[in-house]
């Protein structure tokens, strides 16, 4: 059983608050309950890897953190703020569209199918956030966008359109696009699942480097090697609940639960 966490103490210094704090998070689509009370905390600078069979609610949980889905029950805090609401006095106001947008701008997200904007060059994809959302000046933003593309190993692909890039290159552009917003938290939704096996390594290398810079990351993945090597915590989810979590070396090698064991037996 996950250890219950205490309520956030408002007096605690911000730096000591966890980046993500989920308590009994519930989410249903119609009658189908996808999340059945998720309890999780992700510390600042930590890398949390979410593993589990498909349909276990991993992606849904990730999307809830980024306001792409609304939770039906429980509490979800990101950086000390309740997701989807603004507290004033003893009332919770539902966030307006504009406020949701500014919250999303602080969280980077990388999708399984890249979702690059196909009508824009790699550089313009990376520039979209800074220029259109942050209204940053074009010149310095371009400089920084080029730096980011160089950092993911694509300095020579700046002017290419997404369909001129391989899957792995597209996913690295997508990571650069998310990083351009200078997020405090990065969410990865099965970032290598749509890639040819030989392209997976490049993307994982970029993610490993990113983890090395102290970025807080939540990674939904089937790459157990990455989870073991880079993850600070591994969380195994099944059927909408957290079955087991802890140190990757322990969870992946000596799982306590039968369900974790049978899952790992299939993927390892």
């Amino acid at each position: 059983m996950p250890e219950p966490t205490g309520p956030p103490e408002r007096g605690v210094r911000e730096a000591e608050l966890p980046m993500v704090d989920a308590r009994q998070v519930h989410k249903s689509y119609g009658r189908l309950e996808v999340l059945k009370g998720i309890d999780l905390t992700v510390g600042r600078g930590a890398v949390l890897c979410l593993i589990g069979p498909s349909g276990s609610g991993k992606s849904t949980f990730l999307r809830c953190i980024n306001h792409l889905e609304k939770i039906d029950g429980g509490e979800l805090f990101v950086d000390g703020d309740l997701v989807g609401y603004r507290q004033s006095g003893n009332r919770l106001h539902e966030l307006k569209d504009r406020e949701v947008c500014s919250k999303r701008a602080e969280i980077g997200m990388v999708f399984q199918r890249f979702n690059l904007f196909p009508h824009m060059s790699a550089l313009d994809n990376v520039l979209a956030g800074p220029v259109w959302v942050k209204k940053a000046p074009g010149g310095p933003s371009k400089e920084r966008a080029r730096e980011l593309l160089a950092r993911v190993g694509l300095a020579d692909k700046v002017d290419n359109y997404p369909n001129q890039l391989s899957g792995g290159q597209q996913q690295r552009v997508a990571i650069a696009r998310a990083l351009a917003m200078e997020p405090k938290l990065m969410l990865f939704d099965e970032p290598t699942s749509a890639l040819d096996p030989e392209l997976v390594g490049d993307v994982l290398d970029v993610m490993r480097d990113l983890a090395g810079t102290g970025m807080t990351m939540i990674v939904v993945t089937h790459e157990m090697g990455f989870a073991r090597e880079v993850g600070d915590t591994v969380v195994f989810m099944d059927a909408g609940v957290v079955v087991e979590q802890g140190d990757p070396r322990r969870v992946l090698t000596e799982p306590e639960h039968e369900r974790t064991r049978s899952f790992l037996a299939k993927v390892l």
Partner: protein
Amino acid sequence: MIAGPGAGPPGGRRDGGEDAGSLKIVPVRHPGRWVASAVILVLLAMLVDTLVFSHLTRGGVREGRFQWGVVGSYLFDPSVLRGIVVTLELTVIAMGVGIVLGVLLAVMRLSASRLLSGTAWLYIWFFRGTPVLVQIIFWYEGISYLYPHLSFGVPFGPSFVTVSANSLDTAFVAGVLGLSFNEGAYMAEIVRAGIISVDEGQTEAAQSIGMSRAATLRRIVLPQAMRVIIPPTGNETISMLKTTSLVYAIALTDLFTATQNISNRNYEVVPLLMVASLWYLFFTSLMTVGQYYIERYYARGSTRSLPATPFQRLRQGLFRIRPQTPSPLTDPPLARPHA
């Protein structure tokens, strides 16, 4: 090594140690194609004959069957040219209003609000369900009959400006209203199809970097929807140019009405119908060229490399007078230089 043309038949079976390169290649024959070509050529010859060379005796006078002289003498008649201006004005205004209405209605139909999507549905149902000729005549007769005084102001409150319907150019206004309201309904469906053709992941990606709904629609969804929206919109514009001729029914002197007015006086009915047709053909041809270039522009990112335009191909054809087989002395090697 890259084989040049004529270097030998690929896939040829080598029997008895013979060099396949020395054998003669017999191309596949297409006898059906030759027969069809002969039939088409005869039909074309008949068409040219009847259009250009054929003569006829009408009322004791022997003249060309199609009277191209008469056609030519009215082609640039001032009243025809004035009619062309009206036709083009109607086309541009009706398409402009139609497109704006279409985008608005499409966004309304996709809205989460039942009232908005229902209103858009009702609009499309009504204007797509009644003939555009009826709508044009309805507005023409209806404006002064139903609303003799048009006022602008607070709904159910005081009005600031009141215009008498008689002071308007009723025929032109009715033409514009009838054509553009009808067009709005069709454009709405075209734009909606374009919007829903864009992958949902695009919206999510845009939202994930903090873009607002409006910005996502304008910067991400609509530019990609354009690839789906442009071809049918081109068809709609071409169709609109011709549909404007319906204003004949409300005596608005567009191109078609202008030619009809002339033939009502001189009874040269067929030549003047040809004058109108030639002008319609001229403008629809222009639009087809414009559509080609607009489609090319919005194809960015959907094809790896754009095919050359007809002009580019013509230029390449004119300035590349080279031997068909590459010469090792004058031509650069076909292999990549940095290989």
